[in-house]
């Protein structure tokens, strides 16, 4: 498998705080990667650097072999990296249909949307099970549905790499299963590479083939779900160190 994204010695400092500390990892084409870690471990900061929202203090990000660090978010989106935000973001006053259409038009701007573009909206709405809300105003919908709309809009930009930042937070068990199924589908059928930040272990364990564990900005483990779950350092990071007097 070829390498899609390569992160080399990536570092981000906010004042004196090192949010991401010289991390390295490789994402292969078509893979499903999970990034986990306690709060403040640098997961979202890493995402923000890949997407161009933050400029790294040092290090390189290679996407399809080209350096992309420090470029503007819209440029990176056009290269083929889509994302969803940790705190749900939406174009509130639009209908669900218009919301998804906006994503498609953003990458292929037509003054009047073409028939193919309109058909693609319908396909995405069907795929994400949002058809029954197509004419509802986005801000009138629940956060869970807004997360789904954000995901649907990102899918409309046809990304090669999709970064999901806690996209399933606040969803019910049934909704999580539905989104998981969708993600597996876009991964398998459309060959979309996924990087998922998630606190819900069920999602990480069921979806991801490789997990990267961050703690205090530093990568402490990397491997398949089984390896990571049994890694001593990971358990310590999550449950605290074993007491020396035990």
């Amino acid at each position: 498998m070829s390498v899609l994204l390569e992160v080399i010695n990536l570092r981000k400092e906010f004042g004196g705080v090192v949010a991401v500390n010289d991390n390295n990892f490789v994402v292969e084409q078509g893979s499903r990667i999970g990034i986990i870690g306690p709060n403040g471990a640098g997961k979202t900061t890493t995402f923000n650097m890949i997407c161009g929202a933050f400029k790294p203090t040092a290090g390189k990000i290679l996407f399809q072999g080209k350096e992309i660090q420090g470029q503007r978010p819209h440029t990176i989106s056009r290269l083929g990296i889509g994302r969803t935000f940790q705190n749900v973001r939406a174009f509130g006053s639009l209908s669900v249909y218009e919301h998804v259409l906006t994503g498609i038009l953003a990458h292929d701007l037509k003054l009047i949307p073409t028939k193919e573009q309109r058909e693609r909206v319908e396909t995405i709405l069907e795929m994400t099970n949002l058809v029954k809300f197509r004419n509802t105003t986005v801000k009138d919908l629940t956060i869970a549905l807004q997360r789904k709309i954000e995901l649907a809009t990102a899918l409309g930009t046809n990304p090669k790499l999709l970064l999901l930042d806690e996209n399933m937070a606040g969803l019910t068990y049934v909704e999580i299963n539905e989104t998981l199924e969708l993600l597996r589908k876009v991964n398998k059928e459309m060959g979309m590479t996924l990087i998922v930040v998630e606190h819900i272990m069920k999602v990480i364990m069921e979806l991801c083939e490789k997990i990267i564990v961050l703690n205090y900005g530093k990568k402490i483990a990397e491997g398949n779900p089984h390896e990571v779950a049994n890694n001593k350092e990971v358990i310590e990071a999550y449950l605290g160190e074993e007491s020396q007097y035990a």
Partner: protein
Amino acid sequence: MGDIKLTADTLKPVPVWRRFLVPGIILILLILVPVFASEYVVYVAVLAIIYAMLAGSYDLTTGYAGPLTFCHGAFYGLGAYASALLTIKASFPFWIAFPISGILVFIFAFIIGYPALKLKGHYFAVTTFFFGYFVYLVLLNSAKLTGGPMGLRGIQAPESFFGINFATLQGSYYLTLFFAVLFLGFLYFLVNSGFGRMLVAIRENEDLAEATGINTALFKVLAFSLGAAIAGMTGSLFAHFFRLLHPTTFAWMTSEMIVIMALVGGLGTLIGPIIGAFIVTFILEIMRFAPEYRYIIWSLALIIILIIEPAGLMGIVRRLQRRKR
């Protein structure tokens, strides 16, 4: 989610003929105005149409793309003075000075807007406020070029075209109305096009718009400059209609009136600010007996409107439509 009933059939798209029914009737009435109305009414109608173009173009920048600006009157003034000076000092015909004034104001707004739009929210609004004041001071103090506080005289009416004399009030009226239909029609197309959708996305959530692949900086400055260019050409029309320019015409009060018109009608609806312009012009006219008080009364009215319905007149219309369903 039992109470969400907004399915495809409750929000049926309005048929095209019905969407153009009301504007069509209004347009026919406007065409007939000089036939049955007095000279005074026609004169006020010209001003109202000019304000409608200003409020409509203002809506492109602030209503659709989002950033609150307080310098639309300055672009209006720059266009007016540019066109007047081009015809007086460089003896250009109006028909060339008119588009050039639009292009000049577009370039000017682009140069101002590109760095200024990096500021967000109130910071940008304050910058535009001072820019508007700056333009006023320049117009006032460059006495050699603009006549300063003495005003700029000697502006000619647009040259006759197809035998229509634009020096007459009727001629001016139809000239203004023609370009109003042209510009507002163009704006209507623009805000409903893919370009308009990008602007609305930026207004709704700039971070998401950027992450979705929209070059937010470029689209914002384009919306700003296009709105300014239309205001500039409106200024040119005004200059050759009124044939006397004074800096106070383009001072803070004008920018504020445009903001008020757009707010009264409803930002981000295009038709709202146009209606708002007519309403405000009308009310200002009937309150001519008390010129000092009308702004105070008007400000109070604005505050009350914004408390009752922040989305303006179009907000009330929409609310009524929803109740009808």
